[in-house]
């Protein structure tokens, strides 16, 4: 089967590259704070200036995540959110937006669903790519094959602890963009950017031409702006999730404002 459709993620980065702009890529947990609100949040951040949305499929044992995303995942699971719920939300979002949507989850949710089934249903719902932080290139082939068949990008992660050899391997396998983990640690907002971030991004640049998105620990507009000077995309997860938690009923307005502020900082 030949897929002719250009993946939305590739489209996004080539457009941005031409305009010399950088992507703002917020993370939202599907089904958090509740199912309907998470859909509204997705649409709201897309309107407010997000370029791509990472949509989390909650998992019971998220070992790459800090307390903020752990709590959101638990609460989504208590809302009875499962993989099909998330696909259904994406399907509904697709009636309103063309923003690239990348599902972020752990490999067991994909494996248990069935690789082929999962790729097919995700793609049919309108998902453009998948990130599984516990799926390194060494184990990714079976999934990547299934995903590719349905035009889904499999995004790999690069870490500051990766050797140059591993950075090369990760970048070769990664599709859409390379997810550069800014720090040695789990997800969660941090006050300062890691001091060696620029060097790390330079190391990745040396081995690949693919777009580089940086995530983990970024929370403030100023940090996003700094990151956008060296990378092609800025991923904001925990900071947005805790803002949503704190804003309660006002979370949509608060998320919109936050995203539009960060976006203007990045574009300035």
């Amino acid at each position: 089967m030949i897929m002719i459709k250009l993946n939305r993620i590739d489209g996004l980065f080539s457009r941005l590259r031409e305009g010399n702009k950088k992507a703002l890529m917020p993370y939202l947990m599907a089904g958090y704070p509740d199912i309907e609100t998470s859909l509204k949040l997705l649409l709201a951040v897309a309107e407010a200036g997000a370029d791509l949305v990472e949509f989390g499929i909650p998992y019971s044992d998220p070992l790459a995540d800090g307390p903020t995303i752990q709590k959101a995942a638990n609460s989504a699971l208590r809302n009875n959110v499962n993989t099909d719920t998330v696909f259904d939300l994406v399907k509904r979002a697709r009636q309103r937006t063309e923003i690239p949507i990348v599902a972020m989850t752990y490999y067991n949710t994909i494996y248990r669903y069935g690789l082929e089934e999962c790729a097919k249903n995700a793609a049919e719902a309108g998902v453009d790519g998948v990130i599984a932080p516990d799926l390194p290139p060494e184990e990714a082939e079976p999934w990547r094959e299934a995903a590719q068949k349905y035009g889904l990008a499999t995004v790999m992660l690069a870490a500051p602890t990766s050797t140059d050899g591993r950075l090369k391997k990760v970048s070769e396998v990664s599709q859409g963009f390379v997810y550069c983990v800014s720090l040695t640690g789990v997800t969660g907002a941090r006050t300062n950017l890691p001091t060696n971030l620029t060097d790390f991004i330079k190391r990745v640049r040396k081995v690949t031409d693919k777009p580089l998105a940086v995530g983990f620990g970024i929370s403030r507009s100023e940090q996003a702006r700094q990151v956008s000077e060296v990378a092609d995309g800025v991923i904001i997860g925990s900071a947005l999730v805790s803002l949503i938690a704190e804003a309660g009923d006002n979370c949509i307005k608060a998320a919109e404002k936050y995203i539009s502020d960060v976006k203007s900082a990045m574009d300035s």
Partner: protein
Amino acid sequence: MQVKLPDERGHFGEFGGKFVPETLMTALEELEKAYAKYKDDEDFKAELALYHKEYIGRPTLLYFAERLTKHYGHAKIYLKREDLCHGGAHKINNTIGQALLAKRMGKQRIIAETGAGQHGVASATAAALFGFECQVYMGEEDTNRQSLNVFRMNLLGTEVVPVTSGTKTLKDAMNEAIRDWVTNVETTYYMIGSVAGPHPYPMMVRDFQSVIGLETKAQIHEFEGRDPDVIIACVGGGSNAMGIFYPFIGTGTRLIGVEPAGLGLETGQHGAPLTKGHKGILHGSLSYLLQDDYGQILPAHSISAGLDYPGVGPEHSYLKENELAKYDSVTDDEALAAFQLLSRTEGILPALESAHAVAYLEKLMPDLSKDDIVVINLSGRGDKDVQVAASALGVQI
């Protein structure tokens, strides 16, 4: 002849592998290299052998349980006395081995997860012995039901970190230990307590525990001049079972792993992934797991905290799939009965974990004759469990 497993990528057939965040991949590669270098290194082997003999108290006895044998009136029953290891369980075989490796790798800090607290105590012991800083992650629920072991770890100079996420038991302790490792990977050695986790842990822990099986083979040959007909071991993560099984795989000895059936397999309240689970990925490897239709991990239940784990080491999944070992289960009540039976017939209090292996005799014995020989791996002693046992038996102490 057995094919040598795992393969280079850490796979046992379709099981095992390395499903971890990229941040840890380089550390795992370093660990693999270090282990490959030292495992056949003469100095390393000599030092390990010295600690086996002078510190752990190896070889442990293979004990002929005469009164237990008479009680059943069928096969001869031997107990491999891992309860006599320093610290009271087989766990120390692994932690001393890994500590020697960590020392050679230049690490200063050790982290570990623990369920019953036995691996935590064994890690704390090794840390004290070699002067490592040590932190042990333990589910909050387990810190309550095994408070004695928490204090024991503190005495040994280890900090116990109660884990309040998820089900507050072993699996969550392991998540938290992995999160710590992701954050401190450059300075920290992660001492995994069973044949679980990403490659090379299942292989390495199996190798360190296989001293149990190697000794058993020599000892039973001394007593009986032949291999046993059956070997029984309890299976939590599966390290004591892998340790005693390993030299006997494919030799004709029946290998039986006993999982905890908790309140009964039909209740869903158990810890029997090999009997009732589905294939999936947890804590870095592909194996059988307790999980729902969408891959969410289900909480395990067992009266013994050390068996209260929704996963199992990948090599056991391989042995099961290829019918090289058989897995069955016994309930909390059956284990509790065996706990008392062994205490009364032999004057040996088994750990509740090990009592699961003893309890399997009830199912096995009717099929065996007087000439058959059974070896039970008595993985630990029961002193840590008297409180839990008393409360389960309705006795106030």
